């Protein structure tokens, strides 16, 4: 995997998730950060910090990104959501336009 094809998402606790750029771009918010010309430092370094999103939530979100890509390619499986994560996950999803 070439470095420019990946992005690093960093959780509130500093945990780093390196994922495919096209997976991360499932989120409209991240897509805007990575594609808007110039201004965002995220665009240049491919690193996005989420000081408001905890590690388990960010992990779940990354799983969703990949699940969503699979879904789009025709593999329609069920995406499991742990009840105890739901509310926090929603707030993150709201922020990420996901």
């Amino acid at each position: 995997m070439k470095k420019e094809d990946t992005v690093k998402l960093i959780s509130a606790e500093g945990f780093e998730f390196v994922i495919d750029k096209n997976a991360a771009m499932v989120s409209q918010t991240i897509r805007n950060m990575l594609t808007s010309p110039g201004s965002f430092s995220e665009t240049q370094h491919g690193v996005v910090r989420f000081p408001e999103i905890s590690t388990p939530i960010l992990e779940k979100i990354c799983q969703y990104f990949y699940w969503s890509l699979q879904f789009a390619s025709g593999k329609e499986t069920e995406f499991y959501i742990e009840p105890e994560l739901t509310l926090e996950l929603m707030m993150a999803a709201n922020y990420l336009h996901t």
Partner: protein
Amino acid sequence: MGGACSRKRDQQVNEETVLRGVNGKYSKSSSSKWLRTSFRLGVDIPQGSGKCPSLMELCIHKIRKDIDAYINKYKDFTMLPRDISQQIINELIDSHCLTEVSLEAFRDCALQDINLGEYPGVKDSWIDAISSQGSSLLSVDLSGSDVTDSGMVPLKDCENIQDLSLSYCDQISDNGLKHLRGFSNLTSLSLKKNNSITAQGMCVLSNLLNLINLDLERCSGIHGGLVHLKGLTKLESLNIRCCNCITDSDMKPLSGLTNLKELQISCSKVTDLGVAYLKGLSKLVLVNMEGCPVTAACLGSISALVALSYLNLNRCNFSDDGCEKFSGLENLRVLNLGFNNITNVCLVHLKGLSHLESLNLDSCRIGDEGMVHLAGLVRLKSLELSDTLVGSNGIRHISGLANLESLNLSFTEVNDSGLRKLGGLTSLKSLNLDSRQITDTGLAALTGLTGLTHLDLFGARITDFGTNCLRYFKNLQSLEICGGGLTDAGVKNMKDLTSLTLLNLSQNSNLTDKTMEMISGLTRLVSLNISNSRITNAGLQHIKPLKNLRSLSLESCKVTATEIKKLQSTSLPNLVSFRPE
């Protein structure tokens, strides 16, 4: 004959859909109640439809499924931002999972919309949780609920409400209305079908200075109450349809409402005298006077309305006398003159209405000679000639109306030779040829109309041979052939009409289970009727793939209700209406 009558009723014009398209909130009628309660149930995340659900949708879906567990764990949703709790409650309402208990979990969530229109079980005890949203609340729909006057008391704290619907709440009276006094931000108020409201109670309306839309349809006791609208100069839309208490004197207070754009007074007692009060309302775009005892003399007042583009005069007992005044209504785009006593003489005066896009002449005493006057109305998209004396000779005059999208020739004198003249109307999408004179030959003349989406050949004498033409109509969404001449061999020619959502083949008594096999690939079908045929329980098995089916009619067949119910529970989850039942 019974069938024919019921079909006629469906063709009535509905102003709300004409002007606004299908608008959810304020266009609900009581008759749609069963649809909502039945169809919304069990709506699931779309599977196999290609669109990926967002993470937000998945979470909301999850909460809806396990709502009780979430409420047990979190007690309420106040910790969520408003836009999220709003989405959760919307989902619960849409899927009919909201209960009085789960509503409590949304107490003090600062919600903006609580739209419980037609929602089952809503009563006074729900209102406290609703009004706890306080000044955040902007839109409330309680239509069709059992809310009473006492339910209105807590609601008065929500003084920012802009949209309020209390339609079909027949337990709310003048006393309940009093609590609307402080609703100075209210722009839309709907009180449809309330027989307890009187002129006295309506005095509260004079406080609602920002009101733009007011709906009092089918309120039978409001005579004399419209005086309280005098100061509501922002009012743009007033609906008092089917208020048979409304008379000429009720029109007087409307004369100063110069911002009115839409006025519906159909089925009231308003006469020419009352219409005269409307002369100054120069912004009126729509006037609906269907079924009012007015005559052509009112056209003098109407022609002063320079902005008028939509005029409904169906069922007004118009005769030709005074009809020359129609020529002054040059800006009209929609004119309904159906069920009037007018003849070809009147049609002369429509000649100059060059902006007309829709003309309804249903059941008028018009014939071939009158059609020549329509020949120049080239913008016409919709023409209704059902139940007139128009025949094939008249049809040639409309053969040049290239923009026609909808043409109704049911119960006219038009025969096969007349249809040959329609071949050039390639914009046609909807064509009604429900008439015994039409046969296979006529249908064969129409194969160039490949854009047709709706074709009604209900009573036409179409045989298996004629169905060969159907392959030209690949876009058909609805098809009715009920003349009795079809066998299974004819149905075979419908196999490729995969866009069909409605198929009616009833009265073809020779159709057998083979027909069911033949249509099993029409998976978009929502409504299927093959009553009066030889279909048996065995044939039912073939329609298992029709997962979208909501309505199935197999009356007078060898099919039992028990078998249909079995099929419903195993294979047809969307089926809500079926015969025999």
